[in-house]
């Protein structure tokens, strides 16, 4: 891979990137069985990416819940249906907002640091050193992070949802005076575990894979310089956000 950014058409570049990413995905999938030998490494990474993103995801979840509660209460009161605030908040969160916003936050928090970490390992020959010790960096470094993303994201999204529902409850019930029983009973009555909750879980698992795949790919194939690592980190946020939103649309349109 050359150090200089290749100048070409935007579409051509984009397609080349997607192709390279798809090839990388195949290599990572092939390395997955071998990476199970290093399963403690996967556990460590789950803890690492999860703990790293927890605070930001909880904070943002709370605020999004507060805002959702306010806006929806105001809008629904025009139709005299404030009783369904809880329902709408929960469905919006489980189906869309939870997985998507968590993925975007995850990309900014955990994705960037995965890219920087692996990029630095590339720049300081640590990946080459592993290869020379007959350890495959795809199995030892990349695959555990990829798995960790897939496992950690649904958990993070659930925490995000919980905090957001708590925030909406705070606004609608504690502040604006909606009846507590109405809030919960309407929500539990209308939200379906399989079509709403599990949809969100699948989505967030896929997004977790997408974000960590992009992050590890950018780190793995970075130009081995500080500038190269900086660019790669930026690209991680940009590409994983775009991919997350695009895949979200496709999954919603065709699978759910």
């Amino acid at each position, binding site marked *: 891979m050359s150090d200089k950014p290749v100048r070409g058409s935007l579409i051509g570049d984009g397609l080349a990137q997607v192709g390279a990413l798809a090839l990388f995905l195949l290599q990572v999938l092939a390395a997955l069985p071998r990476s199970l030998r290093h399963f403690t490494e996967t556990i460590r990474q789950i803890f690492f990416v999860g703990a790293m993103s927890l605070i930001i995801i909880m904070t943002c979840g709370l605020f999004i819940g507060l805002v959702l509660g306010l806006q929806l209460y105001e809008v629904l009161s025009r139709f005299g249906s404030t009783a369904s605030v809880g329902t709408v908040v929960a469905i919006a969160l489980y189906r869309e907002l939870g997985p998507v916003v968590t993925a975007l936050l995850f990309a900014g928090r955990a994705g960037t640091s995965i890219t920087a970490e692996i990029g*630095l*390992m590339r720049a*300081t*020959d*640590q990946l*080459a*050193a*592993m*290869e*020379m*010790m*007959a*350890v*495959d960096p795809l199995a*030892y470094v990349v695959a555990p992070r990829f798995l960790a993303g897939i496992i950690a994201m649904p958990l993070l999204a659930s925490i995000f949802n919980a905090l957001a529902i708590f925030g909406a409850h705070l606004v609608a019930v504690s502040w604006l005076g909606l009846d507590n029983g109405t809030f919960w009973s309407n929500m539990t009555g209308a939200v379906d575990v399989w079509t709403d909750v599990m949809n969100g879980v699948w989505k967030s698992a896929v997004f977790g894979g997408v974000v960590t795949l992009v992050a590890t790919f950018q780190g793995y194939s970075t130009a081995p310089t500080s500038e190269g690592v900086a660019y790669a980190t930026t690209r991680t946020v940009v590409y994983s956000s775009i991919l997350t939103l695009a895949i979200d649309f496709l999954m919603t349109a065709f699978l759910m």
Partner: protein
Amino acid sequence: MNADSASSTDALVRIRGLRTRLGAKVIFDGVDLDIPRGRITAIMGPSGTGKTTLLRHMTGQLVPDAGEIVVDGQNLAQLDRNGLFDLRERIGYLFQNSALLTDFSVFENVAFPLRQHARLPEELIRNIVLLKLQAVGLRGAADLMPAELSGGMARRVALARAIVRDPMLLIYDEPFVGLDPIALNQVLKLIRVLNATLGLTSIVVAHELSAVSRVADQIYLIAAGKIAAHGQPQELVRGETDWTRQFFGGEADGPVPFHYPARDYAADLGFTKGRA
């Protein structure tokens, strides 16, 4: 320079007709070289001549444009990834920039190859690692993190990691850089002792002629993409060819260019010919 067939049969590493180009630069232009078993071979040459690249070729990290590389009877071009990894398990490699894993302590860095490839009881791993760290004088530093080491200490830890599995081939890329005279002596002794007692083969890339001539059985001098000279240290130091006279005498003028290929100096500075 072609080695005679008698020595090439017992070469651990045999390279024939190596050609490599990196970017626009020709790095190797027909290199033949033999690393005899059980000996210490030094590879010397001006900075940027491709010594590290040569080591990367020998270990399959970089595929040359042309040429044949045979290591321990195996042609690298015909090895798949598993075959290459099997081979590398028997090679210890000291990187030019140490390349310690920054996440792990000194102890875990040295233990890493053991943990990855052998299921050994923890106590045995501990003993082996401490033994190797003792050999490089850093047993007391076992709990430090790589960021807490000086450059010279990092090199010695990397050296301990390279020898931890008692490989058949040890490759040192500039092992003497950043070592004080005491550590240098210890490392020199270590290289000699390892080679003698374990019966392994060593390749040392280094610039320090005095150090090299104390350990090496033979020296290859690489310059301008070719083997410029080959022989025992005493022979080469006598400086019978232009190449060796210049290189070992440290002179700027001679066949070995000190300058990286460049445009005309005057033109580069903005003076055109004909104007004062």
